[in-house]
């Protein structure tokens, strides 16, 4: 039996759609609530990011609780940057007890790219070790070798970087993540389908689900900024040119068009099992992308 609705969906042959919401640096969660209500019935699961770009915010677990309260399917993003193994394990116990059963294991961006540069980076575990730890908890023992009163059971995923400019070391890490028990991968942003096809030729030998990361670009400037400042993002020059060619104020519309085009191609060519849409602060436009990609069906 599946541990979560999302796990059940993963095991179907349907094209899977996930998206993510970045929580605010605030105690006012009204916008998050708005976005959850807007998206919960249009996607299969919603990630809540964990201090993305190392910027202090409302926590992922808090956002996941809101998704649950509002009847959506949450994916808890969990990075290793801010918590040691005790804190990570206890948060997993909390998550499971609140019916949050999908977890995304990530190393976490460097402290140096964020807004608390003087903070102590933790990295007690890395993303592969976190995956193993979750599977250990499921076996009923914690990392200290002590028995749990009752054990959780999660659907776990992680990330992979198919367009890394030096792919071989990333593939070794991908293999390790599969071996550690990852069931699904939400990839870093895909901007070059040729290299993504090459990655999928490799990845398809494994029994895991791959969701292609779709980052919605809002302007050529934003794309250049991300290339220079956001870890792991490599926007292809052809896309920057395409965005630069549109008249002022139409960038986001073009970004939606590009995202939808990628999604349609991925789906039509059955390149992978689904997509993970990252609207980076423009969560409102996710429904427009789905519509443009002809992914709004009567079942959603």
């Amino acid at each position: 039996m599946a541990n979560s609705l999302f796990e059940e969906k993963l095991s179907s042959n349907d094209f899977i759609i996930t998206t993510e919401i970045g929580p605010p640096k605030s105690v006012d969660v009204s916008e998050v609530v708005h976005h959850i209500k807007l998206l919960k019935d249009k996607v299969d699961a919603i990630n809540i990011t964990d201090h993305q770009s190392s910027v202090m915010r409302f926590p992922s677990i808090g956002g996941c609780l809101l998704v649950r309260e509002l009847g959506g399917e949450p994916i808890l993003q969990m990075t290793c940057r801010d918590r040691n193994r005790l804190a990570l394990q206890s948060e997993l116990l909390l998550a499971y007890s609140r019916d949050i059963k999908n977890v995304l294991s990530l190393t976490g961006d460097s402290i140096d790219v964020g807004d608390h540069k003087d903070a102590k980076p933790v990295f007690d575990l890395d993303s592969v070790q976190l995956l193993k730890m979750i599977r250990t908890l499921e076996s009923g023992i914690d990392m200290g070798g002590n028995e749990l009163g009752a054990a959780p059971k999660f659907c776990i995923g992680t990330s992979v970087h198919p367009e890394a400019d030096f792919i071989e070391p990333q593939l070794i890490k991908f293999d390790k993540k599969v071996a550690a028990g990852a069931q699904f991968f939400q990839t870093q942003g895909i901007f070059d389908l040729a290299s993504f096809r090459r990655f999928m030729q490799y990845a398809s030998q494994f029994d895991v689900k791959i969701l292609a990361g779709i980052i919605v670009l809002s302007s050529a400037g934003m794309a250049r900024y991300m290339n220079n400042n956001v870890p792991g993002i490599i926007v292809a020059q052809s896309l920057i040119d395409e965005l630069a060619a549109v008249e002022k104020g139409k960038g986001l519309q073009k970004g939606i068009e590009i995202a939808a085009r990628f999604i349609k191609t991925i789906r039509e060519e059955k390149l992978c099992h689904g997509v993970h849409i990252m609207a980076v602060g423009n969560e409102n436009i996710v429904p427009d992308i789905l519509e443009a990609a002809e992914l709004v069906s009567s079942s959603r």
Partner: protein
Amino acid sequence: MIVAEQKPLEDIIRMIVPYERVLILGCGTCMTVCDAGGEREVSFLHNALQLAQARSGEGAHTFSEHTVKRQCDPEFLEALGEKTADVDVILSLGCGIGVQAIAEYLPDMPVLPGVNTSFMGMTKESGVWDERCAACGECRLEDTGGICPITRCTKGILNGPCAGVKNGKCEANKDMDCAWILIYQRLERLQQLDKMRRYYPPRNFRAIPRPRRIMSKAETVTGESNG
């Protein structure tokens, strides 16, 4: 070796305010090699402090200078002898270990740190030092082609690169090589990539209960507490 940087002059001037007679004490080992606190730097600092005092017209410090072979070794501190008889404070240009060794050796003498101890490293080129060891207590260089991920990866992760690497550089600092790319390339050259494919479990931080002690001759230390 241990690598340090001399503290800014204004910090040193502020530290010595309460004291009249100041002994500037250099260290003839690591601090000499890294140009932070050897005989030469002691002499430069002596001149700089005198000049600053003369220019400001404030303070009535008298300075003396001396350099021992190694501040971290009580055997060499014995050589200080009379040098400390007529001073109110020792401004040590030794590393943090030197400062503490002097504080233990001379319980009644205040001692000030004149350098910021930075890391254990190697000389990259003249005047450039790079950190290479974090003294983690569990050396894994056998598995990583002689390149330390604890020290050279900003996240200190053990199972391969994160996704932040671009052009072989680290997401935290675009001038810094990604340790895991270096490790991959070196293991590939050595035909040992299987070592990178292995799973490495979480680090055992009990390997570094602070403060640590190593005893090569157990009988020489009798029942004294660590530190």
